[in-house]
């Protein structure tokens, strides 16, 4: 524990809480990805990690480095922004692909209605 000694106690508690909350959300999301029943249920689980899970970790990081550097460190926001933009798109694509496959396999002569 070298450079982290410079962080005051109140901040350390806050950072720890944010980190634990964020990583717990990611863990819960991952367990859900494994445990949930159908594909459509499962693609919802990782969103926990990418929304507030990532948010918690990013906030913790911003706080830590702002205090350590003595100036506001904000570039983690870009990470949060890109994750927020790209992850829903990925999940949407996966969902569409699954939907298409299920419909096409269940009734080959009846194409998807609004895909």
């Amino acid at each position, binding site marked *: 524990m070298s450079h982290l000694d410079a962080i005051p106690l109140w901040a350390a508690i806050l950072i720890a809480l944010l980190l634990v909350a964020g990583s717990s959300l990611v863990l819960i999301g991952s367990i859900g990805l494994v445990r949930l029943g159908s594909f459509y249920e499962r693609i919802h689980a990782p969103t926990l990690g990418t929304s507030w899970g990532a948010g918690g970790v990013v906030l913790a990081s911003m706080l830590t480095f702002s205090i350590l550097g003595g100036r506001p460190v904000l570039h983690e926001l870009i990470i949060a922004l890109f994750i927020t933009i790209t992850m829903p*798109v990925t999940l949407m*694509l996966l969902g569409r692909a699954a939907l298409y496959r299920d419909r096409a396999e269940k009734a080959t002569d009846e*194409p998807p209605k609004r*895909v």
Partner: protein
Amino acid sequence: MPIEHNLLLALLALPFLGSLLAASLPANARNAEAWLSGLVMLGGLVLLAGLFPSVSNGQVIRAPVSWVPSLGLNLTFRLDGFAWLFLLLVQGIGFLVVLYARYYLSPKDPVPKFFSFLLAFAGSMTGLLLSGNIIMLVVFWEMTSLFSFLLIGYWHQSAAARDGARMALVVTGAGGFCLLAAMLLIGHVVGSYNLDRVLASASMLRGSGLYVPILILFLLGAFTKSAQMPFHFWLPNAMAAPTPVSAYLHSATMVKAGVFLLVRFSPALGNTELWFWLVAGTGMATLVLGAVVALFRHDLKGLLAYSTISHLGLITALAGIGSPGAIVAAIFHIVNHAVFKASLFMAAGIIDHESGTRDMRRLSGLMRLMPITGTLAIVAAASMAGVPLLNGFISKEMFFAEAADWHNGSILDDALPYLATFASIFSVAYSLRFIHTVFFGPPPVDLPKTPHEPPLLMRRPVELLVILCLVIGILPAASLGPYLQAAVTSVLGRDTPDYSLEIWHGFNTPFVMSLIAMGAGVLLYVLTARWLPGSPEGPPLLHRIKLQKVFDRMMLLMSWKWPRQILLRIGTERLQPQLRLLVALALGAAIWVLADAGRLVPDLTEGSFDPAFTLVWIVGAACALGAAWQAKYHRFAALVLLGGAGLATCITFAWLSAPDLALTQLLVEIVTTVLLLLGLRWLPQRRTDIAADRLMAARVRRGRDLVLAAICGGGLALVSYTVMTTAPGPSIADWFLANAYSEGGGTNTVNVILVDFRAFDTYGEITVLAIVALTVFALLRRFRPASESTGLPEQQKLQDAADHRADGRQPGDTLDNYLLIPSVIMQWMFPAIILLSAYLFFRGHDLPGGGFSAGVTLAIAFLLQYLAANVRWIEDRLRILPTRWIGIGLLIATATGAGAFLFGAPFLTAHAQYLDLPLIGKVPAATALLFDLGVYAVVVGATVLMLIALAHQSLRHSRSRDKEDS
């Protein structure tokens, strides 16, 4: 003598520079081309004139130019009297030929090509004559063959020109190869490739056990070039070239290179019985055969070609006799023959040009229509026949004198005078036929054109040469004497004999031989004149032997039949055996090298065990194995798993503190995956139900492959592990780390190595990258996928069918909207990624990034655009010209590298300093950054080029589908 060095180098450089300039002039600039080439040749003559005083007494000018001094490689140029005399021919006749060609070539011919090749040939010939290093000599020798090939094929529309050019190249090129082997052997025996050292090592060469192979290889080179029996057949076929080329290359200069070499090396390799038999024997056979065949040719240029072969045989025979007097005669005849034969070729060209035919059976009585050209041709032909008061007579007398002289008393020696006289009879007869059929007799009928005198300037070169024939013939000692003396002294040194250049030597044996030849020659022509036009093209019986056919048969065998048979025996088109062979070979090599390496046992005790890192590696290895497992039937799954393995590698790099590598790996992983994914579209689905796949043989084969792969992979892992767990000790890496900032001005050592310390390697690598990209593009451009995968994808068909059924929707609407949100985001990401790319590029010298990763990033930006929308939509809005990116990148890298020359530093020397920019402040600026810009552009261009090649597949197929539908 620095001024003479510079003159020598200027003499060599001038024609090549002229050639480059000539190539860049517009296609119809006939006058400019002629002026340029003429001035280059004249410049050469002026330089030669300035150099003569320094070589007139047998001295030699040597100009060594250090080329790669660290390897002891020097270019040595030397000039002596013999080379000087020959250069005089090259430049002097070259000048006249340029003047002649200006009027000979039609306005429709592409002149820049002609004059550019002609000047380049003159340069190669100059280099050949000036070479002071025997390997360099072979290089220039081959260059003359190459330019001869290009010039013979100048009218490439005609099949005869193409065949003749190819034949000349194959024969002289093969000879050049033999010559190279001979020169390497000579260098091995003498211990030096320096021409002076070689010429001074005669006893060493003759005493060596390698003398016979050296001599044979050397003679093969000289004989093919000088069209000696039995390699003479290429020369008549080379007459498909434009006449100025025939006059210049194939009579006056290039074919003389062979005899030049014979004369040059005769002091070193000559004076043995083998030399006498081989060289004099071949020369005499060629002399006789050439003269006999020449009489029977109906084509003007064919007659002159065989006459040239015959005269080359004469010079070869003289070199073979090898006595000092014979060498004098050989050098003298080289000059004389060049003068009269060049003028004859030019006259033949004029006749062809003005009357439209070269067939002697159709020509007659031209004396009335073109009296001046006729007179000139008659004088030149008389010189060829050896009529007194003309230059041909004097050297022929010298040859007769040598032939009649006693040398070693062998049968060949005894036969020499008879053979010489016999050949001379035919030479008189064919000269007579040339004059009589073309210029005398009834007026010509039914010619393609009405003959008349050519333009004045086209005739001037012929006039000048014919005047030279007369001047040398009447005043030999006063005109050519000093130059000949210088040439002879430089070859023979202290053995230079006393010879007299006079017309009248009294009523001696040579004169009697001349008289017999004259009389019998005239008689021979009178007897055969009526019968000749109806005879086949060649002497009785002999015309059935066609060496050309033998050559064609050989070419067919060696370039088609044998290679195919060998390929059938030992080759395979299947990839599996090829790969198996490669892998097995690598395995064998590794076992051979590592067999007795003691330290190949991994040291498991050292190093710490980290569970998280181990987990990453277990996942990575599982992905890699899974990819191999699924690669056969489930390519998509294999690709996904491959990505997993790549990510594990990437994490490893980051873990082991190599952020630069991690970054690059991540970016490359993205590009590779996407490109492979695009490629998958065109691979047909594999059938899983192939019966033969379950047979025992197939199982055994797969088992064997598995074992081989497991051994190789395991072995590689073992070796890698051993290497990585060995403490390296002091290595070059420490030096790089210590000096990256002080020497290269960057704190990112990886980048400094790439663009500064090892910039030359990088330069080579980006060149390879560019070549690979172009190759991939070329291959994919002609790629036709299997018919199963050319149709529309299943999903698209279903979507289109749904559109078709729904009201108010056009087929394709669903497809357009399918990726709407992702594509909007991808398009919005475009500027962001470009910014990231620029950021990576500019910080590259000090922090992870650099030209390569920045280039890949930009390529990803383009890649995303192609994914987001269809190709047409993208290319309507965004034109990327990847080949320009590649070209500009290479140019930038080269220019940056070459910029170092301006400061007197070696190629690619970098310079780093800090610049003060307004607003931004102090920024590091290194020339390496410019080089990195080149890398950047090449990487972008190469990646995008491959992307486009793949993307356009779908365009092409939708086009062909549309065509089928309509």
